[in-house]
Structures are given as C-alpha cells and as structure tokens.
C-alpha cells in the first residue's frame, strides 16, 4: 500500500506497540494481559508495517526466521516445566524466586518463562501465516 500517512504512522506505532506488547506480557500475571494478547499485539503491529511497506522491510525487524521464533517459543514453554522435575516435583510445578536487581525486587518464576514461550509462539505463528500469504501476493504482482 502506498500511503504516506500509514507508512509514517506504522513506523511509530510499531515501536509503541512493541513496548505495549512487552508491557502486556509482563503484567499479564497480575492484571489483564499475558502471552497470548501480548504476542498478538506485536504480530498485529508487524502486520500493519508489512501492509504499509512490504514484507521484506518488515522482515528486517526479525532477528531470525519465523520458524525459529516458534521453535524458541515452544522450547521456552516446555522447558519452563522441566525445572521442577530436577527438584523431584511433578512436571510444570511453578518455581518462584525473588531476584534483587539494582535495588528492584523482581518476583520471577517459571510461569513467566512459560508465558514468554506462549508470546514467542503466537508471534511466530501469526507472522509465518501472514508472511507466507503476503509474499504470495507480492510475487503475483
């Protein structure tokens, strides 16, 4: 699509929405949000960008291929459950710890890692679908 307004807007929106998606992901455990919603927001932002420019320019923002993102997501989600097995607890028992980081009291746990896995998987899947179809369109043109 060739619209200056959309292009300019999508660039700013991408940064904003990326921050927003991470925000949703991290607050998800205590307030509405979470990996599914966060992942969808980021995927939607990238899709918007791809519509404004094209898929190739959108791809620059990705550190790796979408398949790899899915793989990492699944690995993180499944791996978060393994932790507890080393402690002799059943698979996927939540493990929590307080981490003090520059004076901040961070309350971290394996469910957060699991949610990050969900986030990555959702981003990867939506992108792989959109990119496959959009590239098909671009090739036809």
């Amino acid at each position, binding site marked *: 699509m060739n619209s200056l307004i959309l292009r300019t807007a999508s660039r700013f929106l991408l940064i904003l929405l990326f921050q927003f998606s991470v925000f949703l992901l991290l607050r998800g455990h205590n307030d*509405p949000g979470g990996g*599914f*919603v966060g992942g969808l927001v980021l995927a939607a932002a990238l899709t918007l960008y791809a519509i404004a420019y094209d898929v190739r320019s959108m791809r620059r923002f990705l550190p790796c291929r979408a398949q790899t993102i899915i793989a990492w997501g699944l690995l993180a989600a499944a791996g978060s459950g393994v932790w507890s097995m080393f402690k002799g607890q059943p698979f996927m028992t939540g493990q929590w710890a307080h981490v003090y980081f520059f004076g901040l009291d961070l309350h971290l746990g394996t469910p*957060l890692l699991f949610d990050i*896995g*969900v986030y990555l*998987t959702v981003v990867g*899947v939506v992108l792989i679908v959109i990119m496959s*179809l959009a590239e098909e369109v671009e090739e036809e043109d």
Partner: protein
Amino acid sequence: MIVVVLSGFALALLAPSLYRLSARWAGCVFSIFPAVLALWFLSHMGEVVGGHGLRFTYPWIPAMGLELSFNLDGLGLLFALAITVVGTLIITYAGSYLHGHPSLPRFYLFILMFMASMLGVVLSDNLIALFVFWELTSVTSYFLIGYDHDKDTARAAALQALIVTGTGGLALMAGVLLMGQIGGSFEISALAADNAAVQGHRLYPLVLALVFAGAFTKSAQVPFHFWLPSAMEAPTPVSAYLHSATMVKAGVYLLARLSPVLGGSDIWLYVVTGFGAATMLVSAYQALYQTDLKKILAYSTVSVLGTLTMLIGLGGKYAIQAAMVFLMAHVLYKAALFLVAGSIDHETGTRDVRQLGGLRKTMPIICAGAAVGALSMAGLPPFFGFVGKEALYEALTHDNVLVTVVGVLTSMLLFAVAWLAGIRPFSGEETHTPKHPHDPPWTMWLGPVFLGCLSVLFGLMPALPEKLLSAAAGSVLGKEVHMHLALWHGFNALLVLSLVTFALGVLVYLNLARLQRVTEFALPVVRRGPSQWYALWLRFLNWSAVGQTRVLQNGYLRLYLATIMTVTAVLAWYTFLAHADAGVIEFNWGDIGVHEWVLGIVALVASIATVRAKTFLRAVVALGVVGYSVALFFVLYGAPDLAMTQFLIETLSLILFVFVFYYMPPFKRFSTRPVIMRHAAIGTAVGALFTLLVLVATSVQWHPTISTYFSANSYLMGQGRNIVNVILVDFRGFDTLGEITVLAVAGIGVYSLIRLRLGKGGDS
C-alpha cells in the same frame, strides 16, 4: 532395577550412531551390554533363591493408581538369565552373520529394544506395564522378522506375525483391564494374594478366554501356530533369539505368572492342557514333513511350547517343576541348533536338509555344537535334555495315562526330528552345496559351543541349576520347592518309558519316508487349516473395509455433516422433549440493558447477513461484525483478556480473509433450492438445540463450579492476581503447552502449503 530394564532402550536408540564408530566390532561391543546384565542377574541369584526377591516400585501415573513395579523372583530370574545370556551370544553371532548388511544398525536398534522389552515383560509386576512391554516385543519382532524388507515373503511373514500376536495382544489388554477391575489391583502379586476375588467373579471365564487369546497367539499354540514357521523368514539370529529362546516363551511365561491368579480351576485345567497337548503332538508331526532346516526347528519349537503349556495347565508340583526344567533344557539346545542352522546356511548357501550331508569333515566345531544340541533335544543322557524329559515323564505319569501317551508320542517324534535337524546334515557323504563350507569365525561358533557346554555340564551335574529352577517353580506355585534333579534315577518306570521312546524314535527316523506316505492324508488338515482361515479372514476384512468405505466414506462432506447433525439434533431433541421438564428454564428479559439489546441484535443481523451475502467481501465484513460483537460481549461481562484477544484475532483474521479473497473465485451458488431448504432446516434444528442447551445450562446448576479452587489458590499457589492468566500458565499449563503446539503445527502447515511447491496447477 529400573535402570536394568530401561537402559536397553537407551542403548538401542544410541545403537545406530555407535555402530558408525566401529562397524567391525559393533556386534562384540553391543554384546557386552547383555553380558553385564546377565552378571547383574547372576549376582542376585543368592537373594532370589533364598526367597528374598527384589522389588522396585516407581509411581508412574499416580493419579490413576498406576505404578511401574518390577519384581525379581525365581521365575523372572530364570527368564531374565535366558534373555541376557542368549542375547549376549546372539548379538555376538549376528555381528558376523549379518556382516556387511546395509541395515545392520537398524538390526542392533531393534534387537536391543526387543531385549529390553522382553526383560520388561518378565520383570514387571504391574499388569499394565507388562502389557506395554508385551506389545513392544510384538512391534520390535515385526521389524525384526521383516528385516529383509525388500523381500515379499519377509514382509508378509512379519505382517502375519504382527496381526496374529497383535490380535491376541488386544484380547490380552481387555483381559488385563478386566482382571484389574474385578481384582481391584493391577499388581500381579496383589492379585495372587487374593485370587478368590477374580476366580469367584462371574466374568472369570471371560478373563480366562481373553488372557488365553493373548498367551496362545504369542506362544504359537494350535490353531494359531502357523505364524511361527512363517516367521522363519527372519534372519537366523532373530529366529534363534525371538522364536526359540525368548519371545514365543512370553505366552508360556504369562500363563505361568498368572497361574497363581487364574489357575487351579477346571476350565484352566482342561483348556490349557488341551491346547498344549494338541499343539505338542500336531506340530511335532508337522515337523517331520519339513525340509527347510529352520522350519523343522520352528515346528519342534512349537511342539515344546505346547508341552510347556500343557504342563502349566496340569499344574501341581511335579508339572511346574518339569515345566521349568524342560524350559531351561529347551533354551540351551534350541538356540544352539538355530545358530547351527544359521551357520550351515551361511557357509553352504542352503538350508534344505535333502541337500546337506557330510558336513562333519568341513565344519567340525559346528558339528560338535550341533551334535550336543541334537542329542540333548532327543533326550539322550548325559545331556540336560534327558533330565528335562525325565522330569516331564515324572510329571505326566503322576497325572494320567492319556497325557503320558501324548508325551511319549511327542518325544518319539521329536527324537526323529532332532536327528533330522542336528545329525543328518553332518553325517553320511559330502554333498555338493552352493558354497564351499568351512567352519565360520569364532563369533559364530561361540554360541552353539557355549550352550552345548552348558547342556553337558548341567546334564552331568544337574544339582547346579537345581536351586534356580526350584526358586522358579516356587514362584509359580507360591510356596517353597526343593527340587532334586539327577541323571540316574535308578532302574524304574521312567527309564523304561525313556527307552521305549528312544526305540520308537529310532524306528520313526529309519522309516521316515514310509511314515510320511502313510500319514500324509492328515497333513493338509493341520497345515492348510489355520493359515487358510487366516487368509480368509484377511480377505473378509479387506472386503468389508472396502464395502463400508464405499457406503460411509462417500466423499461428500455435506452428507457426513448432515448425517451427524441430524442424528445429534434428533436424539437430543427427543431426549429433551421426552424426559426434561421445560419448566426449569428461567426467562428473565427484564434485566437486559438497552446497549445489550443493541449489541445482541447487531450480532444476529450480522450473522444472518454472513449467510445471505452475495459476495465474498460482504460475507467477510459481516463476519467481522459478528466477531467484534462477540468481543464486546466479553467486555460487558468481565472478560478483558478475552476481549483484547478477540479484537486482535478478528483483525488478523480479516486481513487473512482479504489475502485469500485476492485469489478465490467469486461466490457461486451450487446448490438447488430443495437442498438449501433441507440444509437450512438442519441448521435451524441444531441452532435451536443450542439455544435450549444454553437456557437449560444457565438455569440449572448441578455441581459447584471448580473455579472456586482457582480463585482461592491463584495468588497463594500461583503467585498471580490475574486468575485467567494463572490458569493458563500454571494450573492448566500443560493444556496451554498442547494448544500452542497445535498453533505451531498449524503455522508450519500454512508455511509448507505455500512454500513447498509441487509445481503449480498439478503435481509434478
């Protein structure tokens, strides 16, 4: 102990990669593993014969009361030693026998996996675990029989073995579940302690029938015995291992293991004894007509399996003792003879006994091994087979005349068979064979010679294995047994029977051709019968599968759906109208706000517009409106997470629809008016059913909601305030993991559909 059982699986998985490190020595290296296991089992011999079996329990699925429990008692130890000792020799042997075969790594993979499964079968105390290992032996044996998978006959034999034993396995599963249900436990030891619960139940005959179906198919009892000779398509090490020493004995093992639970009744006695007796006689008779060395051995194995089954059926001290002694003798001589047969095949290029002769000059070591095996099989002193046969006769004469006659006749025939298989190829004049024979490398004669030495050693000093065999018989009988074995019992009735057997056996062997002619009339019945039924059954299955596919799987999606939906709607409506009280439904229109009315009507109109849309774009837009209205419902009723997700998904779906719309042809109307009316009626019926369902579900509350648990524990256990999210990532995290996996699969599916082209406009 769990390490002992499961390490085999681990090694099996590594086997192909290890093989690549050293193809030449792989056989010897892998054989160290069963040797170590054998030593481990031997080291526990003292505890086991002392009556202190090892027991190991690991909670497997605690929620269902399932435990992975292993029990090493006398019976288990006897089998475990057979599995690991013979396994060591077989793997050593196979390294040379199959040397240079392209798929040798796969052979090691499956044979090690088989060995581990077999150990699992004989050590499991839990019926479910036993069944799982049991099926694993069926599956691995399928791959091992079909090892030469480019041969038609090998594939057919593998499939036949799998179908026969697999069918039996299904029956066994039903039997096991039933037994566990009525006995109240899946632990064999617990069931044996209270066997009246199972035997007194009215379903006891059914349990027996199902367990028998499993055991008889696995141990190749008449009329299921035909698969075992066909399975001789397998490479010889496989036949020697699976089809003589281990897997086919699993059925016998199962009967022995379960006899404390199920045995002792009249049905048990007559059915097991009857099948066993029929099998031993029929297959010994069939063995006489074979010319293929391996098939001769296969039929004689079936005969021995029949003998063991009969002994277990008879029950009682003497019969069970005899079964254990006979079993050990058989393992020692039959595996040796199979390995000899393999060596002969390997060296001469043929297994046809009519073409073989005089091999004693060219293959002296193998000849020695074969001679010991054959003489032991014939039941001659001073070999262990003689001790076995004496024990057998002792048990039979303690019972009745009929089984004694069957026993003597079978031994007579097996005497002739032993001569045919083990002595004849080596005696007489040298014959011309496809390859020029000589003794094979040490890896290939080690097995027969080692087992032969044991046959002689145990024959001369029967006191050596006495304790182990007593312990094995003791664990079947459930009490302490002190067996006394001896080569020389004095001049008594048993010795007379043995002498009669030898005399008759020599007579049969010398008049083999005449005997074959005279009794030929019976052969078609026993040979053709069962395998023809099998062929007929397969044809029937194929025929019925084709038939029902034509009728039911007609390829019209809408017909499937129409059928399913109509049946559902009719049944549910009927149930409601016939049984339910419509008065329970509470209608309360008063509490609906104006904005809710508006939203509801928008959703209704949009969904009808979707159906009635004339163009794709209109349908998609209307569908979008439906989606956004659903999202607004989520907003109204306290589900912000859902609303956000729904909004985003709806937007992305719209984008997707537009992408696809780009390509698809414009809407067309394919259906005629009557069809449309019919489908509309089905749709309306289903829709009305769901309206009703919602109304009933919201008016009546049967159970308290399980959400109270989540609400109460979300912060305390899940450390999160957003309960929905805590459920997703913690309480029901495993579900979510499954769901994102589905999502990932769908994504990869889309990618591969678009990216992996097979050429546009058709398959390339």
